């Protein structure tokens, strides 16, 4: 199976976030601030992290999320782990 690219990973994150936090998929864009767009706090962000780790079968240490607030940068961090 070919390796995923950052656009594919971003799309999967948006699908998962839309479903988990009940925000219409059409309202989510790669450059959005996920804290604001999903209306989540740090505890819910950890829940999102758990779901992403399970979905992509990776470990993503939370310190790699420091300063990350948009879906696309999050996808880049995940890509570096899926690699």
């Amino acid at each position, binding site marked *: 199976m070919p390796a995923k690219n950052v656009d594919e990973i971003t799309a999967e994150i948006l699908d998962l976030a839309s479903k988990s936090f009940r925000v219409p998929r059409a309202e989510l864009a790669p450059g959005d601030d996920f804290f604001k767009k999903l209306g989540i*706090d*740090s505890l819910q*962000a*950890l*829940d999102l*992290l758990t779901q992403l780790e399970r979905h992509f079968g990776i470990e993503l240490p939370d*310190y790699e999320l420091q300063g990350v607030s948009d879906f696309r940068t999050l996808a880049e961090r995940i890509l570096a782990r899926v690699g």
Partner: protein
Amino acid sequence: MNEYTGETLSWHRAGAIVEVTLHRRPLNEIGRATLVDLEKLVVTLDARKDDVAAVVFSSAIEAGFCAGADLRELYHSMKGLDAESRQSGVRDFLERIHRVLNSLDALPAVTIAAVHGICFGGGLELALVSDILIADRTARFCFPELRLGLVPGFGGIPRLKRDLGNRLVRDLLLTGRSINAQKALEAGLVNQLVAEGQAPRVARLTAEQAAKFDRETARAAKRFAKPIPYAELRQEIELFCELFARPVVEDALRKFVEDSGALPYLP
């Protein structure tokens, strides 16, 4: 003994099984009120030790098992005190919480923690006294204490070292990162991984299984299989008190308490 509802937790006994439920909002932060309830639990369990075969701990709070020590209470209790008074106050609390957790660790009954969501700091230390840890897929485990200029103070390092390899202990401690339930299962921290919301049910079934065995044999097996690291636990109290007196701790606690941003739980 059969039922108790306190400010921070409740318990009830059904046959030989006691179920303890943490229910203090926002996320079962462990402060003086929880300490008092846990002390009552220990006294009660000790008085009825011949009647109790298993104890299950779980949380009624949706976000998780326990977010750890009550840092707001800790910060407000230390404000305006000189270094010596701060150390004395925190030592008193640590001595009491250690007595409680050591008693639960060495309880003759089989103890089972049913964990979901956040299980951080003092919450992980509470879970670590259990004989068996059952987690659902939402669980995350973390020792974030170094962010505050501290080490875990409720027996976390000695108990995690007892149960797991020191390498994972160092990873969790020195990076402050959280790990998910799958990783915790692979590392041996979690005994059984179950679907979301199923940990209390599975823990209850596990308690019923454990309660079937001859009590005296089970107690002897537990004593043999689970040494209590008393010397290291004492060292931990000393180390914590030594670190606690430094200004960096007050600064970090103030930052946490006054932070109304979205990220206080992210290391």
